[in-house]
């Protein structure tokens, strides 16, 4: 997995709540057996509208997406974080996320940051006020701050997820350190409840 440490990037304000994974990557782009190339399908329907934020030249090269609550609801498709990553994003900031999207993101070195609703509001205002508004997302310090450092917002993250992201660790490798425990659990379960095997 790719590491995530510090990210300094332009913020794209996507002022919508409940952005679902069918919008992030419509199904007509799911028919691939690879993990790459999904950027083309990112918000494909919405991008048909010339006014849509991603079509505005000033957000070219942006790496941070800003959205409203319940981002990533709907299907379990991991193609959603893949598409965001493939397009160039590394982080999305929102007041809340749907569970499966949230989990999928971490597996790909893509950081979902939860900030309070008023903090997200403030970032939307900054985006509107300052073209090319950038923030620095520092995973180790768990902060989001504008590049001039005029303020900083703190976010929470599970220590285990943070550790994996900072070091770009392969989760399967980590789990297999417990292979003996898994085997022991399995043996006991098989003896007690053989009908599950």
């Amino acid at each position: 997995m790719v590491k995530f440490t510090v990210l300094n990037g332009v913020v794209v304000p996507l002022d919508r709540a409940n952005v679902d994974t069918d919008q992030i990557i419509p199904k007509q782009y799911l028919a691939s057996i690879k993990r790459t190339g999904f950027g083309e399908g990112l918000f494909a329907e919405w991008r048909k509208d010339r006014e849509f934020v991603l079509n505005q030249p000033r957000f070219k090269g942006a790496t941070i997406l800003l959205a409203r609550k319940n981002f990533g609801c709907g299907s379990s498709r991991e193609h959603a974080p893949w598409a965001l990553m493939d397009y160039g994003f590394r982080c999305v900031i929102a007041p809340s996320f749907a569970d499966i999207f949230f989990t999928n993101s971490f597996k790909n070195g893509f950081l979902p940051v939860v900030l309070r609703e008023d903090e997200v509001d403030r970032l939307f205002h900054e985006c509107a006020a300052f073209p090319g508004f950038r923030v620095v997302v520092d995973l180790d310090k768990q902060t989001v701050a504008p590049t001039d450092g005029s303020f900083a917002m703190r976010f929470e993250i599970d220590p285990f997820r943070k550790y994996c992201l900072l070091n770009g660790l392969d989760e399967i490798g980590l789990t297999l350190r417990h292979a003996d425990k898994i085997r022991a659990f399995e043996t006991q379960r098989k003896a007690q409840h053989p009908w599950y095997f």
Partner: protein
Amino acid sequence: MRTLYDKLWDSHVVHVEDDGTALLYIDRHLVHEVTSAQAYEGLRNAGRKPWRVDSVVATADHNTPTTNWDEGLEGVRDKFARLQIETLDANMKEFGAKVYFPYLDKRQGIVHVIGPEQGATLPGMTVVCGDSHTSTHGAFACLAHGIGTSEVEHVLATQCLVTRKMKNMRVNVEGQLARGVTPKDVVLAIIGRIGIAGGTGYAIEYAGSAIRAMSMEGRMTVCNMSIEAGARAGMVGVDDTTIEYLKGRRFAPQGAEWERAVAYWRTLKSDPDAKFEREVTLDAREIRPHVTWGTSPEMVVPVDDAVPDPDKEKDSVRREGMERALQYMGLKPRTPITDIRIDKVFIGSCTNSRIEDLRAAASVVRGRRKASNVKVAMVVPGSGLVKEQAEREGLDRIFRDAGFEWREPGCSMCLGMNPDRLDPGERCASTSNRNFEGRQGAGGRTHLVSPVMAAAAAIAGHFVDIRKW
């Protein structure tokens, strides 16, 4: 003093990190063609083998055509869909499974229909699948939820999921449902009440006399849409209905083992004084047939109501969401739901494609014709076995005589990855679970309803209150 979810969780924890991140053992892994290819590729690249092949039950369902089966693989016109189907075939040959129902097999079908049908979903299991509607299996007192492709690979390689414990929520539905009101209406009413993020972070247990009175099919419909309320998992405790359903199914235990299993399964319910972080109660008698009007399942009203007016919404983000939804749906505020005319009807999906759903829909359609403004009304059984059963009962004839199309099993127009789609602007009465923009085809407009409501809409050409049918 534990909830059902607590019990399921406790019986599967292999290891816990200091921060609460746990390794959870997985009993059943359901695999389909759209979310597994990259996982198997990952295994191959890392030189890893699946941990326990006999935990895997696989099928191709998401993008398989519902016509042209007589042409074999040639009938899959979309070359990418075909590649995914062939890739699953190849992966099954290379890695294996407990059982695999390939495209064209007579037991093939929607993964969430065939698991229970085969008795491959048993109470007390942890069940995962790279599909968010895995919550369906919770109807059997399983801890069942959707996972992403990296997790599919992780479960294949380690038989465990890295996860954290969720919170407990109980939704009680008490009392008797009125005639014409179905489990689909119950779950739509629940989502309307708690919202599409209301269950985020929770495992929901459905309880109360109305849930107890439901068949397994009905409970599956309710659990299926837990994810539409934001909850990864939904579940119902074991009772006689659960046990009856499982008896004699192919992968259910037999003989003395069956007796032992049943004794254990009977413990799989919440203790009387178990604590839930959140409880919600609905009066079953007040639930009416529901119809969604917008682009998220929480945008739902009873059929005798009207499209809501965004001007009455105080929250600005919500109001804008409503306005966008109305524009997308081509609807005006305050339009009575029963005035909405439709172009297509879809009866199918893992929410409502089981035999009971088809029987209910057929009972409405019997001896009638679909309305002339309804271009297509299609019935897509959830599995080959459901289809066979329906044909034995003559349901296919009833639908065909009424001008409906009788298709081969699969996900079909639930997500339109195969050729079954809405055209831009087309309006559909659908028994599926998602009404997101473009879900059933770019520009398509989806109204989620129960099978009887969909059937009645096909006949009338617009929504009707099935209670007055």
